[in-house]
């Protein structure tokens, strides 16, 4: 009797395996729909951002009636949980089972790096609308990935230039999250800032699970001119609050990487965020007809204000559709689709003109933004723009790439003591 149960169980397992074999791999009918596979973190700590990403993409598809050149567009969204292993599993599902013609999405740098060998190995055209890790389009450029988003240090080069030219801040304390995104943000700022005569006089790294910033804020040198902060999500909210509570806000003006005040956290902030100046390739408050239209439509659809995440996937989807048009609708020809993805150039996106460089990263406008209260709510008012900024800033790309990647120790902190 007992062994019968065991057998039943074994049979169930085997049946499950067998059933998985029978999951139909969508037969490629001629000329079936264009299939786009999208990866986003729909569960876990990044679920809200994942939702923004999906909403942005869906919104563009709805606008064009989910059609391109007479072919239907089918977008298959998969949850990555925000982990590289799950993202890889889901990519395999999308590419090998659903036979998508193009893969897109992803949020975190480690997911980006983990998928890169797989995407290049499968030779499937892909775009990264959000993943910003510098090296994906720099020292380890991926052949099959076109980035439609940004490189982490890209806005920060321009931001340092702006700080030198328009402010009197010369001694800046950097405080950031202790991981690659933090290093690349601070590193980009530091390089241009110090070459222009500024000084980073202190670098403070806070762990990703920090709950109380008091010990870190206590270390901040009071003889500096300003503080540069880089935080994301919950940490940005907490940091802002404590920066004011400890009285630092009245003594040291706050600069920051774009995510410190981006629209995914800004609505939950209060007056403590006012006056913070940051740089990014998007602001919900960009005052152009294209962005006003996009921002209003998104708010109507999603019930919350647009963030750079939703703009990223909206524009990314448009990018993909333009590429499909350029390739004459022949998405089955992967080489042609990849070439088209690299050739697209958009003049009038919500974040301004957009085209990609030879390494696959966009050349785009960088916005210097200041948090202001307008009509009762906080926004990132654009106070300066840097058009056509490359990921290499004004440096020669070949020479730029000979420098190491920005890290915890690079550029070295010469003026720290």
């Amino acid at each position, binding site marked *: 009797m*007992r*062994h019968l*149960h*065991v*057998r039943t*169980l*074994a049979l169930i*397992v*085997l049946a*499950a*395996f*067998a059933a*998985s*074999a029978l*999951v139909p*791999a969508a037969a490629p009918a001629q000329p079936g729909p264009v299939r786009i596979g999208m990866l986003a973190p*729909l*569960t876990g700590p990044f679920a809200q951002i994942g939702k923004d990403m999906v909403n942005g993409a869906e919104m563009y598809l709805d606008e064009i009636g989910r059609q391109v050149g007479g072919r239907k567009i089918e977008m298959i969204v*998969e*949850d990555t*949980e925000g*982990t*590289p*292993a*799950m993202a*890889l*599993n*889901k990519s*395999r*599902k999308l590419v*090998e*089972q659903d036979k998508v013609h193009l893969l897109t999405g992803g949020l975190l*740098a*480690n997911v980006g*790096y*983990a998928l*890169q*060998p*797989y995407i290049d190995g499968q030779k499937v055209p892909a775009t990264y609308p959000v993943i910003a*890790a510098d090296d994906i389009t720099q020292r380890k450029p991926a052949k099959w990935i076109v980035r439609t988003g940004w490189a982490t240090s890209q806005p920060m080069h321009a931001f340092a230039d702006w700080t030198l030219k328009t402010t009197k801040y010369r001694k800046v304390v950097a405080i950031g999250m*202790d*991981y*690659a*995104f933090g290093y690349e943000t601070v590193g980009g700022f530091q390089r241009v800032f110090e070459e222009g005569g500024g000084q980073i006089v202190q670098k403070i790294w806070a762990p990703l699970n920090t709950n109380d910033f008091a010990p870190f804020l206590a270390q901040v040198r009071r003889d500096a001119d300003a503080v540069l902060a880089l935080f994301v999500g919950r940490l940005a909210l907490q940091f802002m609050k404590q920066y004011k509570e400890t009285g630092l806000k009245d003594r040291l003006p706050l600069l920051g990487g774009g995510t410190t005040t981006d629209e995914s956290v800004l609505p939950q902030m209060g007056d403590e965020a006012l006056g913070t100046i940051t740089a990014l390739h998007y602001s919900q408050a960009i005052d152009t007809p294209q962005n006003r239209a996009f921002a209003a439509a998104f708010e109507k659809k999603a019930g919350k204000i647009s963030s750079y995440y939703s703009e990223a996937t909206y524009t990314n989807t448009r990018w993909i559709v333009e590429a499909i048009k350029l390739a004459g609708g022949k998405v089955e020809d992967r080489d042609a689709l990849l070439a088209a993805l690299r050739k697209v150039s958009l003049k009038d996106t919500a974040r301004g003109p957009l085209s990609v460089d030879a390494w696959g990263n966009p050349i785009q406008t960088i916005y210097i933004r200041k948090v202001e209260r307008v009509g009762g709510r906080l926004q990132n008012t654009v106070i300066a723009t840097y058009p056509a900024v490359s990921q290499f800033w004004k440096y020669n790309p070949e020479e730029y790439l000979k420098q190491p990647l920005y*890290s*915890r120790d690079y550029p070295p902190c010469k003026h720290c003591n």
Partner: protein
Amino acid sequence: MIDRRVAAGAAALALAAAVAPALPAYPLTLLTQATIVAILAMSLDVLLGYTGLPSLGHAAYFGVAAYAVGILATERQVGLVGCLLAGVLLATATAALFGLLAIRATGVYFLMITLALGMVVWGLAFRWVSMTKGDNGITSIPRPELGLPWSLAAPLPFFYFALVATVLAWAALGVLVRSPFGLSLKGIRESETRMRALGYNVWLHKYLSFVISGLFAGFAGVLWAWYNGFVSPVDVQLVTSVETLLMVALGGPGTLAGSALGAASIVFLKNFVSVYTKRWLLILGAVYIGVILFAPRGVLGAFRRGR
């Protein structure tokens, strides 16, 4: 009874081997993943199910081995044997060290210590950037070549490779738990004081069980690095340890085949259910609760009444 279970397990493996060539690529990679995770779950079962020590830091040994392979294969182009030895030895050494610190504790304290030690390894993976590439992880880890006409880079040969590895691990652990040593472990699980009174060196038995468990977790870690082609701090974090614990609890602690079954079920549940609904965590949670309520000794344990 035992032989029947072994036979059922062997039949399941044989059938998996038989249907594999007919499987599309995606289910095949999941099946591969299931076999590797099964080794990890079985290794924890030696500790949890047979010795009665619930560890919350098992991802540490798994991760140490995966990192060893990642670093050696990408920076030193070390091949199959070198990676395997280095990964397994390093994991064993880590377990040997951690065991010295952890074995003195029992119950909740053992949980806490293993959790803390696991976090140490996670911290190293995250912060020792020059070695581990930090949060970005190590990517492009090549799969080894066996010198056979089939390249392990292809999914099917790698599946068979992983399957053979799983069978070997299962057989080795099966012999271990049925050996006099394994029976003493069960004795310790049931009553430590009685075993001590009988003259057994309880500490040494627990310690060896801990180290052996780490060794096999390391074996799984080596395969994992080859399978995914990358390793990142996520592989070492607490969630991975907890998930492994749940796999064993789900399948049935104290039954190697049950742990393997639990591992496979979770891999498939996670990947298939999440395709159909965003609420897959809810379903997974319901499954856990259901098992705890109706089959507290795990799915396979439920069929072993009177034991």
